[in-house]
């Protein structure tokens, strides 16, 4: 059977599922809505303007890549990320936006495929044997409201999601060192595009402390390979920094002069909730110190618990979940569309846990909140910010997910076995 026939047959098969039809129609609506809203309202006020300009500046005036007067909003990413946008800068702005979003739709198709394959790879043995429920959850991802903002702003989160999922799939499927290197290289390329996945790096370290037997297990060679793989693409940027010294200064000035006071926004990170509080009540603050404090507390807690986890199999999934959750809780600006990096990982966790696990009961509400309700609270923030400028609902559900993963990591083998056997009994 040819590849084309196989795909057509699979689509026909999927089309029989009502939820798949709904998801496809809804997602197409999101895409078309974003195009209409772009031309009517957001043409002069979206993130894609920056990416579009970056490609052009990279080609023609690279030394001024971080000269922020060139942009509507600050360009903060690594210089090599501009390479991804060069093809778009050749087109007219409007055509580039539409093509960029068509490409975003294609990325979503790839994300769904890799999500489906990863779920089948790590699905707990007590889940249903058919793929109905897997299709349901992949469709839930596709129906997520954060896609709307992602399309309207012309954002690049889907690239990061795809790179994270592909590297996760490789880490889970292959144990050979060469594959570990390939997986981490892919993750490194994701970090170049947008440093969202930066907090995943510590969780690539294969280190486990067995609390019961007081033994440390550390796979040095695999850890080294993974770290080299993930850092290598990032280091390539330093060639550019070396050739064009103003780039290095611009990059540092843009990213690490975080000691200025900052105005309010609806980010749901703990850091932003604290700085919003300080701004609102005129408490002197330094946002860089707040960020470092939150990273140390939340990140430190996540990393320590990850090291003393009581299981080994598929632990990388939980490491990735920790990494993204920590990033969303700690970084200044965690917005609705960034949740597209987290929701696929939560879906994978739901399938990796036993079918009726208590932990799933904590993760599911968070998944549904992120997917269908969080956007509404951004709107509510605009209504109430003069008196209450805190978008804390997303933070709450992030903390619920974080707590659930912590709990799972600390669960004793006895409890896990009892949970595994619950259905069988």
């Amino acid at each position, binding site marked *: 059977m040819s590849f084309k026939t196989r795909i057509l047959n699979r689509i026909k098969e999927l089309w029989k599922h009502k939820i798949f039809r709904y998801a496809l129609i809804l997602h197409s609506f999101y895409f078309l809505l974003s*195009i209409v809203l772009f*031309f009517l309202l957001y043409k002069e006020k979206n993130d894609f303007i920056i990416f579009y300009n970056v490609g052009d500046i990279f080609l023609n005036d690279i030394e001024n890549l971080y000269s*922020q007067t060139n942009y509507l909003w600050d360009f903060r990413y690594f210089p090599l990320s501009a390479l991804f946008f060069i093809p778009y800068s050749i087109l*007219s702005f409007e*055509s580039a936006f*539409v093509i960029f979003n068509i490409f975003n739709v294609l990325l979503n198709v790839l994300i769904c495929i890799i999500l489906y394959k990863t779920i089948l790879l790590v699905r707990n043995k007590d889940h249903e044997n058919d793929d109905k429920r897997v299709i349901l959850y992949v469709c839930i991802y596709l129906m997520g409201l954060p896609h709307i903002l992602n399309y309207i702003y012309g954002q690049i989160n889907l690239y990061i999601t795809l790179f994270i999922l592909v590297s996760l799939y490789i880490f889970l499927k292959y144990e050979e060192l060469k594959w570990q290197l390939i997986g981490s290289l892919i993750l490194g390329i994701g970090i170049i595009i947008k440093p969202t996945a930066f907090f995943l790096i510590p969780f690539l370290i294969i280190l486990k402390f067995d609390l019961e037997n007081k033994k440390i297990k550390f796979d040095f060679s695999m850890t080294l390979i993974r770290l080299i793989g993930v850092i290598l693409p990032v280091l390539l940027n330093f060639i550019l920094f070396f050739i064009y010294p103003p780039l290095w200064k611009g990059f540092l000035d843009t990213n690490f002069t975080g000691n200025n*006071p900052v105005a309010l926004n609806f980010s749901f990170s703990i850091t932003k909730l604290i700085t919003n509080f300080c701004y609102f009540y005129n408490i002197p*603050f330094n946002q860089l110190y707040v960020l470092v404090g939150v990273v140390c507390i939340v990140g430190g807690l996540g990393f320590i618990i990850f090291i003393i986890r009581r299981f080994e199999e598929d632990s990388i999934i939980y490491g990735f979940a920790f990494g993204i959750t920590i990033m969303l809780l700690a970084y200044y600006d965690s917005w609705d569309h960034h949740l597209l990096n987290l929701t696929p990982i939560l879906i994978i966790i739901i399938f990796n846990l036993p079918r009726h696990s208590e932990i799933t009961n904590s993760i599911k509400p968070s998944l549904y909140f992120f997917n269908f309700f969080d956007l509404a609270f951004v709107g509510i923030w605009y209504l109430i*910010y003069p008196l209450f400028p805190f978008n804390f*609902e997303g933070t709450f559900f992030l903390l619920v997910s974080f707590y659930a993963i912590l709990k799972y990591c600390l669960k004793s083998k006895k409890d896990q076995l009892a949970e595994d056997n619950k259905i069988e009994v």
Partner: protein
Amino acid sequence: MKYRLYLFSFFILSLVFSGVVLPVNAISYKTGVNENDELIWKCKVCNEAEMNLIFGLGWKNNSGIFQNLSRGTKMKWEINTVEVNETVNKIEFSIWYWTLNKNWGVQDNDSQITYLNNPKDYTEELNFSIYNSFVPFWFPIPVGEYMGGLDLNAWYDVDNRVLPTLNVDISKDAIGSGYPNKGIEIIAIYNDEGILNSYKLYIKGNVVIIDIALDFLPFYVIPSIILLFTVLSLGVIVYIIKKCKSIRLSTPNLK
């Protein structure tokens, strides 16, 4: 099959070229205030000692926007005329300077603000140092786009991503020797009507020495907060009840 392929190609191409086909209008700027509108600002913080140190003793006695400013005082504008034509956007207003007196009495001054209708029409780099506040109290709307269109000097950074905000960073001696006597930073946030909603003047260490806010709360703010917390509280109560029920059901009957 070919027919479908053509249809799909046509759909994609029409999306790609929609930018060429769809008319794109230039933004027309308006005033968000109307004649007879009253605008009142309240001063929440005023560190007079620091202000004296930074701007000299005359900072609040020079008929500027900060005249008589002190903590707890209010300032009122009453819009007299609004003029919008092809070239300018202009308001004329009466002004009652900062006072603790609740009875406003006769106005202290009459003033006007004029902007060119297209922010791109300004031929020179702009700054707002004619105001003691270094930012205007009013802009044409849409305010974010108007501010973003201005060619402001290096002191200013427009951030219209979430709330239309003008960030100002003025270093020591930037205007003249000893003026200002310390580096200052300002965050000015505007509302949808182009009116200054919040003004905070910071010194080193992010310490607020002036905090001014528009003394007006949109009608929907308090009901929205009440509704939000009611719904959240109900959610928590329903969750606790459900949890208790499930615990009761799963606990074996000891009798």
